[in-house]
């Protein structure tokens, strides 16, 4: 795809995607996440004291949670850049604050615009295609919330019934589903052209190398930064391949 040609103006949908109205509309659901965390925290503190946990233990738990979150939360920002570049700030902010993982949001956004025949990076993506992405992410994301909202009190029984002695099969089905889904997304990139193929291949290789390194040395922060690093290297490779060889096929 010729990303530099005929792109004197930014995609028109970005004005809508970064508008004040979208910031306002994205805020209530983020506040709901904070409200839930606040309610649970207050109650756990109170009941924890009644259960004989000391104030020191409670404080230490909170402090550790806060400190441990800083590194991974900053690492998530790197992935957020990809969403800001494709669906704008407000929706990126909301989708990563709620349910939020790049592994779901980005594919869902891509599926959304591809319903109207586009891929991210194409010229002339319309506001309608952007809106289809937003609808697709919204409808797809509520699946987890509904299962959790309705199912959590019954999870113990459901688990026994579904897993029932086949504990080792469950991670294999999950991995099979994720691998099948991401094989599909990678295939879409491979058929888009040489720069996309290079970016996907190198992104994968960097990820493998960093995770291997993190395991061997047992260093957690390498694991946290693996995706961000893979993105950065993949981006550069995509640009270099494009400059050297053009769009490819």
């Amino acid at each position: 795809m010729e990303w530099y040609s005929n792109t004197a103006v930014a995609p028109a949908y970005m004005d809508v995607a970064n508008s004040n109205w979208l910031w306002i509309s994205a805020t209530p659901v983020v506040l709901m996440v904070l409200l839930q965390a606040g309610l649970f925290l207050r109650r756990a503190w109170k009941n924890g004291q009644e259960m004989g946990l000391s104030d020191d233990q409670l404080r230490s738990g909170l402090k550790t949670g806060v400190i441990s979150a800083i590194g991974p939360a900053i690492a998530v920002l790197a992935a957020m850049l990809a969403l800001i570049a494709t669906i704008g700030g407000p929706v990126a902010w909301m989708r990563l604050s709620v349910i939020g993982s790049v592994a779901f949001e980005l594919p869902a956004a891509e599926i959304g615009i591809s319903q109207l025949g586009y891929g991210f990076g194409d010229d002339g993506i319309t506001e309608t295609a952007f809106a289809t992405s937003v609808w697709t992410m919204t409808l797809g994301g509520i699946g987890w919330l509904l299962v959790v909202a309705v199912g959590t009190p019954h999870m113990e029984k459901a688990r026994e019934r579904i897993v029932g002695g086949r504990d080792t099969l469950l991670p294999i089905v999950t991995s099979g589903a994720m691998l099948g889904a991401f094989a599909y997304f990678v295939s879409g990139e491979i058929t888009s052209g040489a720069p996309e193929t290079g970016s996907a291949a190198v992104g994968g290789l960097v990820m493998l190398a960093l995770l291997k390194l993190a395991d061997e040395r047992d260093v957690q922060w390498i694991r946290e930064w693996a995706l961000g690093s893979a993105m950065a290297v993949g981006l550069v490779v995509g640009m270099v391949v494009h400059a050297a060889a053009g769009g490819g096929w």
Partner: protein
Amino acid sequence: MSPSDSSESVYESNFIPYINRWGRITSLLAVAFSFGPALTLLAIFDIVPPAGAIVGGFLSVAVTFGLIWFIEPISYYPVLGIPGTYMAFLSGNISNLRLPCAAAAQESADVDAGTPQGSIISTIAIAGSIFVNITILTVGVFALVPVFEALPEFGRNALESYLVPAIFGAIFAQFGRDYPKVAAVGLCIALAMTLLMEFGLLAFLPGVPLYAVIFVSVFGTIYAAKVMWENDMIEPDS
């Protein structure tokens, strides 16, 4: 009544009912509020996507992730506990953020995972991690959007075009690491289906046949993984 009996009963008859009640209420309200941006595009900007596109988009996502909606909560539940399940699935980032925070907090507060005390501490730790996470995302998005908008055109286009394939490749590699044979089979299936679609050989199907490509890729790969597992060709995840 011994102290452990009374803490067990505070946990079971006081804490958990409160969590189930408010967990459900907040999750369902979040479902409703999550429609905010989509409805704003509709009501304020008059952007009405074709119904077929929304249905097609939803079906494709449901085929891709529908099984995972159920499998993930069931898989993580034993480690997250009841309060952790509500919080982690509302706020996301489970394996990279919530689980490490909860485990580290239980370690530092010297409580055992799987006990009522352990669950209280992990609730507190996950709540703390959510405040930090959302604060950093909020500061980050306000910092990053102007940076992105100030980039020259080719820079923005490069970000739009080449970050996404790198992420797809990286996540595929991350899952493929544990099951390389399944990954290889999955990629062959998905690539073959994508090429069939590109060359118009799926045109006999109604609508945009993306859903068929995704369906065959996802369930074909799951089936291949299951067959390999039954024939002891893959090691179960430890």
